[in-house]
């Protein structure tokens, strides 16, 4: 029997006043998967996550989480790291994690050892007795992450987990997410750090202006989004302009962009319907080249392809301002 999905979103719409934050969204997060949730600022990611967490209620549609009709019924099985997150400044780290653990139903008996183990694991040994305000922002982020997962949740929802982390801590977090996923937990996280998404997730879904524009296993998506782009590097680099001109004149080439002045590599977009292997042969036969390479699509390419620059407006303030009106309006 196939397992129930961890999250099932069916036809969900959420409006804040006039603004439609989430528009007729359908989404399935299979149990045991690790999903990246992408989209420009203001696309509706946080609103969707808040609806999954039963913090907001959809105007239309249904959401089921871990087989229940509302996350409120299974809060203790879910670990949630919100985008707007913080700690009690004057509380000691240990006290804060104990408090959060108890709120999430962790038995008091093993809690203290669990906290010590986790602090060790995220490279924060010895901070237990420190006040949260004494920690650096990155350290606080790690404490917040621990607060979200201290109760061993089946489903982990992380809203922008990488924001504010330096590369070392981002790497640590990615490793932890990998480990948690390997333990069989379902993880869904929203992010702007597309490289992280690509490295960690097995599925991605992207929304833009409240609508889903992409959903599926990452390999399938990358294959589907063949960018039909070659990276071409000339052998001689003295007269790059002449080389570029010759390249552009080839029938299989649509346009050429300079990728990197220093390496002299040229980003070569192929014309519609051209077979990349044919184009590569043609280039090698016609021009003196050091390197011709078929570029693999990245999430970033896909993101840029699907999202117009004007979609990425920072409308968070607007949304949160409208949130009250919406909440008001929907009741």
């Amino acid at each position, binding site marked *: 029997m196939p397992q129930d999905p961890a999250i099932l979103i069916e036809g969900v719409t959420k409006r804040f006043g006039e603004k439609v934050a989430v528009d007729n969204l359908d989404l399935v997060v299979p149990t045991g998967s690790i999903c990246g949730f992408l989209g420009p600022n203001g696309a509706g990611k946080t609103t969707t996550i*808040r609806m999954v*967490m039963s*913090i907001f209620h959809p105007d239309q549609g249904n959401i089921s989480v871990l087989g229940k009709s509302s996350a*409120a019924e299974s*809060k*203790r099985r*879910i*670990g*949630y*790291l*919100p*985008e*707007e*997150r*913080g*700690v*009690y*400044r*004057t*509380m000691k780290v240990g006290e804060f994690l104990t*408090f*959060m653990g*108890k*709120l*999430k139903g962790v038995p008091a008996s093993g809690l203290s050892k669990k906290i010590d183990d986790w602090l060790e694991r995220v490279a924060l040994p010895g901070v237990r007795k420190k006040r949260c305000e004494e920690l650096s922002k990155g350290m606080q982020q790690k404490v*917040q992450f621990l*607060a*979200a997962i201290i109760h061993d949740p089946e489903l982990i929802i992380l809203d922008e987990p990488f924001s504010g982390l330096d590369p070392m801590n981002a790497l640590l977090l990615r490793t932890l997410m990998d480990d948690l996923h390997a333990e069989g937990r379902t993880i869904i996280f929203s992010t702007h750090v597309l490289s992280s998404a690509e490295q960690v997730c097995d599925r991605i879904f992207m929304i833009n202006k409240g609508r889903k524009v992409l959903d599926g296993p990452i390999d399938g998506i990358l294959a589907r989004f063949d960018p039909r782009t070659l990276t071409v590097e000339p052998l001689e680099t003295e007269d790059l302009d002449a080389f570029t001109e010759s390249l552009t004149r080839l029938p299989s080439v649509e346009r050429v962009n300079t990728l990197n002045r220093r390496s002299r590599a040229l980003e070569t977009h192929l014309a519609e319907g051209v077979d990349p292997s044919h184009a590569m042969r043609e280039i090698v036969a016609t021009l003196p080249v050091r390197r011709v390479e078929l570029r693999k699509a990245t999430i970033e390419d896909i993101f840029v392809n699907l999202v117009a620059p004007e979609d990425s407006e920072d409308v968070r*303030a607007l949304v*949160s*301002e409208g*949130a*009250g009106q919406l*909440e*008001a*309006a929907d*009741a």
Partner: protein
Amino acid sequence: MLNVPLIAAREFKATAMTKAFIFGVLVFPAVIIGVIYVITAFQLFKQDGPTLRGNIAIADALPGQPVASQAPTRILERLDQVREQVKEQMDRMPGGADAGPMADAAITRALGGDVEFEILPADADIELQKQRVRDGELVALVNIGPDALESDSVFDLWRSPTLGAQLVNEVRSGVSDVLVDERIRNAGHDPSNIRTLVATPSSNTRLVTETGETASAEQLEMIMPIIFMILLWISVFTGGQYLLMSTIEEKSSRVMEVLLSAVSPLQLMTGKIIGQGLVGLSILAIYLGVGLLAAGQFNVTQHIPFSSLVWLGVYFVMAYFMIAAMMAAVGSAVTEMREANSLMGPIMTVLMLPLFLWFLIMDNPNSVLAMVFSFFPPTTPFVMILRISQTAHAVPLWEILATTVVGFAGVFVMVWMAAKIFRIGVLMYGKPPSFMGLVRWIRAG
């Protein structure tokens, strides 16, 4: 749900187990009491001038010079009496027994060490003597004119700046006493006899009520209701203020949504209100305990209406939940304390009413005004504790019960409205809503 007690416990611990709280709630009143003691102590041997040393000259133009002959003894006797009184009071103060030498020194400083009297001849040149005062040779000069025994007569007392107020008073009184005695004697009576006759009798005032007869203490009865009301107001407001601050802190530190991942907004609000309620209750218990202890110390426990203590508990619950609901609502709607102020304005105006009205209410506890505010839920507990703990006018039982019902109904409505605001407010960042904005949230929530 177990989460509500967990939140309440955290709230209580984070507020009451801090140095600031302990300092504010315990140390501050202790300091106040200490300051009162110190002020009292200083008043006892207040120094209006430096140590007195010098002569007091008396020019007496009366036949037989009765003032010149009797006043010095009288004045010295009075000074001795004052010394005794001061010592007694010093002994009653904490550590007073050890303060003996210090007290003596202070008394000497205040009342003067070596005071000598100089009797001037009847024809002494007063202007010349005044110059001696000016030169510091004399600390005081008393001039008794020949008509000093007339009923509307005055006598002259010139003093140097070195003569303290306490001494001036004793000198003046000593001289006056001698003059009065002389008048009595001239009228053919025995002064000591007359003084005994005109001694003011003291009264044994008893308060008669339905339940019996008790010793009367009007002042205490006047002040008791106000003490109860202030006690209620302070404890309720401290708890409410802490609730406002902790809600704003949770919002501004962005810990709010972290909490909402584990609990519902209603659970969070309930837990917070209960936690800070315990803080308010602790304050009430501490201050009330200190008050009762002090009352026991001064032997006035019998003047405390104990039924009022029970009502104090009931009205604490009523007043606290009313104010806490308002504070939770305002706290959830804003992100900074500064933003809360504009929303607090209308609320504070209503809640300050009892403080402005207590005098009018105490003047006539069963007036229409008192009744109106008894049935206005935000002021019900404060006005009713005033009315119930005064003894002059019994409040009808139906009114006590009816106001209790109305008061708790008001609390229910307020908590219901606050829950609606709280649910929306906790995740709202950016521009805070106006007061009317809050009303819209309630309507829409």
